């Protein structure tokens, strides 16, 4: 198994592997998300308080989860890149950042659209909302810093440090609803004391989260191809690839 992993770490092998796997994962994610949407928008019963408005949960919660999950992937890859100086690890961070920023943006917009009918406002400086907004700035900061230098290696290292510093924000987002009495809903879905959601409601939510995870796997591989090409453009295997393409 280790040989396979070691081989995978070599850019040319990884580039080919990503190119083969990404399309399959992309189509799979489309299927899973379609199933989740069918369950969430059509099958799940309306909420006794929020009626059909609660259905925003099926994009809001999965994207909020992804925004934090992707940041952890980015921070771990940044640490590996800094400690073992693995170029591919920095490429993973650089490929993950735009996806993380996108999911954070979706979480903020869908949450805001959900907040208006339920709280009466699109935005409030609540602990959960504010820390999620900071997460968006961290992603944007990472991307800006990553591209700010002529030499990509410097950009990788500088943005990796920012990614590591920003880790502290993740537990703050997660526990914000517990530490401060926030307007935002407490952790009710999975850790709630009593199961507030019937299976017909939380099963589509699980499916949507899995769908977003598969989507992330597909398109981080696709973005990694670009990142690897950019970092390896002067190598022989890239020249051979370009000549062949």
């Amino acid at each position, binding site marked *: 198994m280790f040989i396979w992993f070691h081989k995978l770490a070599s850019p040319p092998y990884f580039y080919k592997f990503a190119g083969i796997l990404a399309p399959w994962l992309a189509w799979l994610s489309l299927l899973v998300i379609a199933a989740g949407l069918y369950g969430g928008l059509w099958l799940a019963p309306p909420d006794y308080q929020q*009626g*059909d408005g609660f*259905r925003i949960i099926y*994009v809001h919660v999965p994207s909020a989860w992804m925004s934090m999950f992707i940041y952890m992937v980015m921070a771990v890859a940044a640490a590996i890149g800094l400690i073992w100086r693995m170029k591919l690890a920095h490429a993973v961070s650089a490929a993950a950042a735009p996806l993380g920023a996108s999911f954070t943006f979706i979480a903020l*917009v869908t949450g805001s659209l959900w907040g208006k009918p339920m709280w009466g406002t699109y935005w409030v400086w609540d602990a959960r909302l504010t820390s999620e907004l900071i997460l968006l700035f961290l992603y944007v900061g990472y991307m800006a810093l990553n591209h700010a230098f002529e030499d990509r290696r410097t950009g990788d290292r500088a943005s990796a440090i920012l990614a590591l510093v920003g880790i502290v924000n993740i537990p703050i987002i997660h526990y914000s609803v517990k530490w401060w009495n926030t307007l935002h809903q407490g952790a009710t879905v999975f850790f709630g004391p009593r199961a507030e959601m019937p299976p017909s409601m939380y099963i589509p939510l699980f499916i949507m989260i899995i769908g977003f995870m598969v989507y992330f796997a597909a*398109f981080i591989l696709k973005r990694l191809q670009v990142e690897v*090409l950019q970092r390896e453009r002067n190598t022989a295997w890239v*020249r051979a690839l370009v000549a062949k393409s």
Partner: protein
Amino acid sequence: MNSWHEFLSMGGYAVYVWPAYGTALVVLLANAIWPGRQQRALLKELRRRSLPSEERPT
């Protein structure tokens, strides 16, 4: 949730639910399309650079 119209109205929350899903759709589609185009553009650029300078397409 039988009639199509009833489904679209989302129990009166249509103006919040559908823009939320629309945002997610637009952002996810953009992230699906963008890397492929970026890859093709990069390969084209690398190919252009690999040609001897007089044969370079403008």
